[in-house]
């Protein structure tokens, strides 16, 4: 476990924010997560890394949880505060030999876009389509940072996105070609349904990668 100083807090919505910390000699594979907590405290939570492998800082995207123990406290962090970082953990990673020659479909809901943001910013040359499912358009976290031709915003609570409805409804109406490598990150329900849909569309079991958010 290492101590990392907070550099800044970037509020994206009234309840969602990005904490930027110093990176020091921390290394990770894009898609992995860390556990984060205040220095010396036993309370820790897992967060996917939002920043790119090559960035000289470390970022995580956090949604404040009602009655949450840590997300409310972390939001009050100030530059210079010290956080303990452990990791990197997880196997939700891109395969080196696929990055340059495969077509990717990234499907995420809510803050599940975090590891996808890291994927895309680590490998901007990738051939990808990003599907982001949210309720309201203000939850399209930093959507301007993605190539608009590759980014599809699905809004289920209002008709303000590229598609009005859930990501699963989008997938049903817009089948994915079977040679696509799919990465799914978000809540269990979406992953469960999307997995089923993709499988029926001919995506083989192997190339579907999932990371569950709670």
């Amino acid at each position: 476990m290492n101590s990392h100083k907070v550099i800044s807090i970037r509020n994206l919505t009234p309840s969602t924010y990005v904490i930027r910390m110093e990176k020091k000699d921390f290394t990770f594979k894009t898609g992995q997560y860390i556990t984060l907590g205040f220095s010396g405290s036993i309370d820790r939570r897992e967060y996917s890394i939002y920043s790119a492998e090559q960035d000289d800082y470390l970022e995580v995207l956090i949604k404040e949880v009602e009655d949450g123990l840590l997300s409310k406290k972390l939001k009050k962090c100030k530059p210079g505060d010290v956080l303990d970082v452990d990791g990197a953990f997880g196997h939700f990673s891109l395969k080196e030999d696929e990055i340059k020659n495969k077509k990717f479909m990234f499907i995420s809901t809510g803050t599940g876009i975090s590891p996808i943001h890291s994927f895309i910013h680590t490998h901007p040359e990738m051939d990808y389509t990003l599907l982001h499912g949210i309720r309201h358009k203000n939850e399209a976290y930093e959507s301007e940072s993605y190539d608009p031709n590759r980014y599809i915003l699905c809004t289920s609570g209002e008709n303000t996105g590229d598609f009005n409805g859930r990501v699963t409804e989008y997938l049903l109406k817009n089948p994915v070609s079977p040679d696509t490598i799919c990465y799914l990150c978000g809540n269990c329900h979406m992953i469960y349904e999307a997995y089923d849909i993709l499988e029926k569309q001919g995506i083989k079991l192997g190339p579907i990668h999932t990371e569950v958010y709670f």
Partner: protein
Amino acid sequence: MKTIAFKTLGCRLNQYETDALASTFQNNDYKLVDFDTEADIYVINSCTVTHQSDHKSRHFISQANRRNKDSVLVVTGCMANNAKEELENRDEINYVLENDNKSALFSLVEAHFKGELKHPSQLDKDLFAYGATEKGFHTRSMIKIQDGCDNFCTFCIIPSVRGRAKSRSFEAILDNVRSVVDNGAKEVVITGVNIGRYEFEHYKFDDLIEAILNLDGDFRLRISSLEPDGFGDKFLGLLSHPKMTPHLHLCLQSGSDEVLLRMRRMYNIKTFKNTVEKVRTIRPDFNFTTDIIIGFPDESETAFTDSCDMIKDMEFGHVHAFKYSIRKGTRAERMENQVPEKVKTERSEVLRGIAEESKLKYRSQFIGQTQRVLVETINGNTAKGYGEHYIPVQFEAEDLKENTFYNVSIKAIVEEKDGLLLGELI
């Protein structure tokens, strides 16, 4: 001569570590005695994977103290990591030894008797510095290849108590296997916390298994518990090797994809079934055993039925079923819809009945077949051991020897003795 008694709870890795520690003490003039007798030193190698394991560990601590209040009582293992403060505050416990310096137990005890009181934090930390296991409690020789886990399944406390995944050096493992085989081991069991994730330099799990199988000697190889996500087709191909035993403990945990997602398992039911089917296409009598957690948060009646159906479909040779219990600090602790204890108990009874039927059905197919049994215990002319499929077999003969292979023709199954197979020496 000082006497030492061990009590081991939980996984095969703990069993291996106890075997190695017990051998070190015996090689240094300590006498190994039964835990139920009075000893100078008691070592409890604890487990904390469920509430029940904690309860058992506490029970054995009290039991040891009652047997000999003046003994040196050491508690090690996963509970020592998870409940360190609680255990250190118990007067009857002399030392609480965390997993990462468990291998230094002998030097701790030696120092104690020389009057050099060492704090466990002063001991060497080495996850792989265990000696040979030849004087342990098992005929089979366990080989530790890795420790720790990075999977962070939402129900599991193990990454917090065993730490990050670490793999032992490739050459050290091969040397260890050569050494135990040279010393007469007939069955080598690969053990660790998450062995499928073995990775040392450019060697992966399947490379290691292939190298072990290609070593000389009359031994057979058993893989202990394996997660269904850490291996590929190369490993499945190695299951047909003549030295490989046709048995895998492949941890399923639930028969429901929804539950598996919430557990953060990295496979689904289809991939699990595909693995089993692939292996059984080549070897139809391959023994798959598994773990099932009953009553994970929000486990619906349908999800529970899915687990029961999987047991029937997969025809598991054995199911280790246990009720979910909250482990502090895990993600599942904070999940809603915890299943009431009463429901878990009811489901356990149902599932265990199905698992029992599955076991008997699976084992019955061996009647009329031959098993190569490694004899572990002999009582008069009665020998007991395990066949290559990891099924207990009993047979009668004269001049039997332990740690020896015998070809046995299976004649019957004893349902009331947990599916024990009875056979005749060929």
